[in-house]
């Protein structure tokens, strides 16, 4: 019992180190060489699994190396606006995309390629029997949601408002993975996260769908950047994401596709 918990914890530790530290703070310069037939894609952290898959397909089909910089969308937008060399930007929220577009750093209009929906993440087996948002307001329930400054927090606020649920979380996490990790570590009883995140952590958590989440769907826009070193390859990558193959991969990861 204790041993499995420890193992879970250690897995979470490893995950947190990899997802939380290493990549959220990745150095754009290190991944942004941007020449020699190398495509650089800045993508929201929640796209890690699906885009890595799509990148491999794309490399095999096109013979172009794809390098990813996965991080929080706002950090990526800031990096792009500060001149980080990137060809493609895929954001987890239209607001972050707008930052880049408004700064005149995009080439053409962004297109929405995926949608993500909030679910209630609970420990595997749903020990507290959570079925609806209102279950989270029980006095003893400890709930983590994202801070409103990040897209999953904004979406959570919208969903809670739509449901008319007055929820007092114990913490407003800095990103969706941090919120999810609190569930995996057993520190909270539930967290509002994206369906894709639950899908990726299916060994440890279950996702409870709730109707109010439809009002708080998160659009994922993608765009080719103005300063792209390889505009043609960049366009090909965006097309690949929007292709049937791309949609299949995204759907498998838990995204909805338009």
């Amino acid at each position, binding site marked *: 019992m204790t041993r499995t918990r420890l193992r879970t914890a250690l897995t979470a530790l490893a995950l947190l180190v990899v997802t939380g*530290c290493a990549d959220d703070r990745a150095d754009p310069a290190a991944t942004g060489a941007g020449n020699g037939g190398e495509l650089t894609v800045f993508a929201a952290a929640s796209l890690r699994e699906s885009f890595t898959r799509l990148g491999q397909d794309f490399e095999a089909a096109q013979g172009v190396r794809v390098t990813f910089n996965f991080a929080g969308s706002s950090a990526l937008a800031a990096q792009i606006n500060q001149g980080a060399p990137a060809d493609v930007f895929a954001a987890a929220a239209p607001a972050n995309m707008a930052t880049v577009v408004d700064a005149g750093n995009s080439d053409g209009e962004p297109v929405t390629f995926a949608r993500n929906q909030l679910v209630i993440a609970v420990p595997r087996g749903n020990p507290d029997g959570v079925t609806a948002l209102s279950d989270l307001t029980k006095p003893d329930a400890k709930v983590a949601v994202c*801070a409103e400054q*990040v897209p999953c927090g904004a979406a959570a606020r919208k969903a809670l408002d739509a449901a008319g649920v007055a929820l007092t979380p114990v913490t407003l*996490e800095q990103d969706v993975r941090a919120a999810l990790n*609190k569930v995996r570590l057993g*520190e909270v009883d539930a967290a509002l996260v994206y369906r894709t995140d639950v899908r990726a952590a299916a060994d440890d958590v279950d996702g409870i769908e709730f109707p109010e989440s439809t009002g708080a769907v998160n659009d994922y826009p993608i765009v080719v950047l103005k300063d792209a070193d390889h505009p043609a390859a960049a366009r090909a990558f965006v097309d690949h994401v929007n292709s049937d193959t791309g949609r299949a991969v995204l759907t498998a990861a838990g995204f909805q596709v338009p």
Partner: protein
Amino acid sequence: MAGGTARARPTPTVAPRGTRRTGRTPVALLVPAILGLLFLVLPLAGLLVRTPWATLPQRLTEPGVLTALRLSVQTATLATLLCLLLGVPLAWLLARVQFPGRQLVRALVTVPLVLPPVVGGLALLLVFGRRGLVGSWLDSTFGVTVPFTTTAVVLAQAFVAMPFLIIAVEGALRGADTRYEEAAATLGAGRWTTFTHVTLPLVAPGIAAGAVLGWARALGEFGATITFAGNYPGRTQTMPVAVYLALETDLEAAIVLSLILLTVSVVILAGLRDRWASAP
């Protein structure tokens, strides 16, 4: 005296005075020194350049700002006290007591320096969390859970700040003349009295330096705090956490918050320093 031929002490030769070197500072030291200063100060200048001075007063009075600031100063101070309470005895142990594995213990003490703070926070969760080694016992015995509380903030800060204090105090203890402690013993002071009445006052400057370092580190603590204590305004949202979240949406707000944190810490440290400098 008898015999009249006692050995005389040799007359000390008087060294010529007034020839103390007052020449120019060597360029080989001056140039890297100035470069070092620039390296440390320029990023601050970068912040100042981007500061939205026009909206500054209005941003300063936003309610969340003062709450986070107060929480930061309070928790950093409590964390420093905790470090003093636990760190000074540990430093004493390392400096004064021979025991097997002392080198290992000394290395372990520096672990929080090397560990990325986020991992430190996670490690604290694994110990003090609801399912943690100690935390589960606390929960089942006292019904106390540590994560997401102000206590957790203090613990996270103390965890990362403690090595600074220990290293400073241990250095001071090693540099202190242990013969004063022997003198105290011959006057009837036991080990504890000697420690409190002689050793501590002797190394007070070292303890002060360590406490300042620790306090500053605690004040700037982010990674361990957000991982272990989470983020909730008024309870666990310290200034660095507020800065991080502000960065998500509003660069200027983040800069303003950073400047406030910087100003407050500089003012407090400078004030304390004056007090110590004038102390006997």
